[in-house]
């Protein structure tokens, strides 16, 4: 018996193979279309939740905000101007305290295996979504922990008095004070609109927790399946209110390992890969495209303006002039960043291209030091942050390079680093002379750079550790916040940038870039100009079908040959 089976096994196996090839051969045409209709995205991690209100992690917002949800208003185009989304228009009263949104009337929520909507999107959904964050007594406020980190960081509850329903499709926000960054906050990835009807249904079932695990939104994709640490599968939302997504299926292949993302990309197992490594290898292959976008962040070298000798403007300028920023970007960022000319990235609408840059000029630096009375040089400390951030991947190396640069003008540098929490604590106490740090913006509004980094009020609160306080600069920021006229705001911020580059409380070094790689057959923008990703416009180019057809022909020929033999 054994001998028999042993002899038959190979034959059986061959038959199975032949059989499967035969049957799969018949369906050759569909295979192409199925993978053509699907985008596989190799993402870097599992989302913590499917509700971006609850998290500021990039991985979470990448997986949810632009895919599952929409917000009331959105950033449009390269210049990041605010445009309509779920609200087709809005009106701000003259005092800036009442903002009325007129909602679209044709927006439908996802229809999934766990929820079937019976009505279209309306004012109740907006009120539900914002009251969940604002109202501590709301039935969903404390579901999933009750922490809304983005809204807490911008002090949303101190700003918004209440949200009112005017009629079925009109909502009014009443603010306690005028703040022009309010609209910017509403357009972020975090201010998404949830379904009130779904919420009600979950209350009835007593499964409130599901609202953040099995999400319902208005976005271009709906959740089909999620396996922690493995994959997220989205289907297209077929009754999406805008032009619907071009692919039917979107799969996030969760691959935390950098090398496995690269391998999958090279082996064409994923169409798009987040944060790829080996940029040169990708760039040299013509079936892959490497793309990047400048992130809204800045890595900088700051001075403690309360301490000798950096209370002297000339010393700050001299040190800044002596630092070769291009070399830092080459070495520390390995070219994955753009040189910062000001604290605001050039991609921001408020950036003024005429902003003067100090540049690299060691000779002038030496002269300035002489003028300031430090001709014979001095010794200073640089505090380098101990961990990696996109805006500064290696602060210690950067500090060493600066050390070498400053040696040329006769300044000796001691590099100091502490464990992160100690580092921050000692910085806020002002024990440092100079430091390497950075800032990542929460939203593209320029105020998010100017106020927290350098205003007088933030030097008290501890986010401005240069302790630089300039009344003129602060007044410009106040004026810019009070007006909604974009060109006026832009001119105020331009003046503020000139002041910074003159006073040099800090030297902006670089804005890091976010990289992404994709197969050459994937078309459409994925990286958004202000950060985040969206797959709604992505499609796959048709692949040449000829080679597949050939295979079928060969197969059918061999089949006929077999028949003849029989």
């Amino acid at each position, binding site marked *: 018996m054994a*001998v028999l089976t042993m002899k038959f096994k190979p034959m059986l196996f061959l038959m199975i193979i032949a059989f*499967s090839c035969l*049957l799969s051969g018949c*369906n050759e045409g569909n295979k192409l279309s*199925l993978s053509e209709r699907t985008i*596989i995205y190799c993402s870097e991690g599992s989302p913590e939740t499917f509700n971006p209100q609850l998290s500021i992690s990039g991985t979470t917002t990448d997986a949810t905000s632009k895919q599952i949800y929409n917000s009331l208003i959105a950033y449009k185009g390269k210049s990041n101007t605010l445009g309509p989304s779920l609200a087709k228009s809005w009106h701000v009263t003259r005092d800036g305290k009442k903002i009325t949104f007129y909602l679209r009337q044709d927006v439908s929520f996802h229809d999934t295996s766990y929820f079937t909507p019976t009505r279209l999107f309306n004012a109740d959904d907006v009120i539900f979504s914002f009251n969940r964050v604002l109202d501590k007594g709301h039935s969903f406020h404390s579901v999933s922990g009750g922490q809304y980190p983005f809204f807490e960081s911008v002090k949303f509850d101190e700003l918004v008095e209440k949200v009112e329903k005017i009629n079925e499709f009109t909502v009014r926000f009443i603010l306690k004070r005028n703040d022009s960054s309010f609209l910017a906050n509403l357009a972020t990835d975090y201010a998404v609109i949830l379904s009130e009807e779904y919420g009600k249904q979950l209350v009835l079932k007593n499964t409130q927790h599901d609202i953040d695990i099995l999400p319902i939104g208005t976005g271009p994709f709906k959740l089909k399946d999620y396996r922690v640490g493995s994959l997220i599968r989205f289907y297209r939302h077929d009754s999406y209110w805008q032009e619907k997504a071009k692919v039917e299926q979107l*799969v996030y292949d969760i691959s935390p390992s950098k090398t496995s993302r690269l391998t999958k990309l090279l*082996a064409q*197992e994923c169409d798009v890969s987040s944060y790829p490594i080996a940029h040169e290898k990708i760039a040299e292959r013509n079936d892959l495209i490497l793309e990047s976008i400048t992130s809204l962040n800045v890595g900088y070298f700051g001075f403690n303006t309360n301490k000798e000798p950096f209370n002297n403007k000339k010393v700050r300028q001299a040190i800044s002039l002596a630092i070769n920023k291009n070399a830092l970007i080459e070495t520390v960022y390995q070219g994955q960043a753009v040189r910062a000319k000001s604290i605001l990235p050039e991609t921001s609408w408020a950036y003024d291209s005429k902003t003067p840059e100090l540049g690299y000029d060691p000779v002038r630096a030496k002269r300035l030091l002489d003028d300031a009375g430090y001709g014979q040089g001095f010794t200073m400390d640089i505090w380098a942050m101990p961990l990696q951030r996109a805006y500064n991947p290696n602060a210690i190396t950067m500090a060493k390079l600066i050390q070498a640069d400053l040696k040329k003008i006769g300044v000796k540098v001691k590099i100091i680093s502490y464990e992160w929490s100690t580092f921050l604590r000692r910085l806020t106490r002002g024990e440092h002379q100079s430091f390497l740090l950075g800032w990542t913006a929460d939203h593209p509004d320029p105020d998010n750079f100017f106020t927290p980094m350098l205003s007088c009020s933030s030097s008290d609160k501890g986010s401005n550790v240069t302790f630089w306080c300039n009344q003129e600069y602060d007044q410009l920021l106040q004026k810019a916040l009070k007006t909604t006229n974009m060109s006026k705001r832009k001119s105020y911020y331009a003046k503020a940038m000139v002041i910074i580059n003159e006073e040099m409380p800090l030297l902006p070094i670089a804005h890091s870039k976010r990289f992404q790689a994709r197969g050459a057959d994937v078309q459409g923008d994925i990286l958004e100009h202000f950060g985040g990703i969206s797959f709604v416009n992505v499609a796959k180019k048709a692949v040449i079908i000829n080679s597949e057809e050939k295979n079928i022909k060969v197969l059918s020929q061999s089949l006929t040959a077999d028949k003849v033999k029989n």
Partner: protein
Amino acid sequence: MLTFTLRRLSLFLFTMLVLTLLSFSLSFLFPGDTVINHSGQINATETELVELNNSYQMDKNIFSQYTAYLKNILNGEFGQSMASQSPISGEILKLLPATIELSLVALLIAMLVGIPLGFIAAINHNKTSDNAILSLAMIGYSIPVFWLGLLAILLFSIGLGWLPSAGQISLVFEIEFVTGIQFIDILLSDSPYKWQAFRDASAHILLPACVIAVAPATIFIRLSRASMIDVLAASYIRAARAKGLSFPQIIFRHAIRNALIKIIRHVGLQFANLVTIAMVTEVIFSWPGIGRWLIDSIYQRDYTAIQSGLLVLSCFIFIIHILIDFIYAALNPLARGNNYGS
């Protein structure tokens, strides 16, 4: 045959007892609270803790603790994973089939390649082809699997782009979980893309299965070569030759059949070896099997998962051994006289 069966059963029972004793003692050896190591409930509330202590009889002596632990295991209660907080039995049931599938395909490849090559080597004993096959086997046996796996990915996935490098199936396909054995699930599913999925799954399993198969294949080569040389030297072969049978007749009618019977037993022994290799390979090829899960649990210090995973895996391998013993005994009457298990 009855004594044979009873012997195997008692061996099984005692080995299982030792194994459970080991995994039970691990809970005491691992850092942390014993009952939490047993159950994996790191966020247990006061009342839950009382319940757990009760169920594991933590207030009684060590012997009743052990019997309580055994009772829990026999009821399929392996506790829950400390990392994911889901029941371990469920996770194992999801992952074990994938490992079995991979190991079986690898075993099949190893047998299909190894045994014929060994026979060829034996027939051409001391000739060039024999030496070539033997040195090939030596090389194959010496290559570490983690290195071979990476090399295979580099060559076949990245360089040539022929085969995928990770996972069981392209994520494009949605296959519902029924048995966990991907091929069966595909055949059971009612997806219109069934056959493409089948082909895709075959492409995915090929590379890891071949990498795993290398080491056992070389062992099969040496085993089948040795057993074939033995058989060819036997007097009945000489008798057959004297009768005037042609060479192919001697090989196919007499030699192969007799040589195979000696190999079958080793196939089972190799299976344990195979599963060990598969665990490393699963990590390299991101195969969603129990090996990768176990190694991940070690990284995450998920003591409950390590403990129960080891128990289930060793139990599984042991059952395979016993099964092979039975098959061997059924095929070869001489083996039934072996009273002692090995």
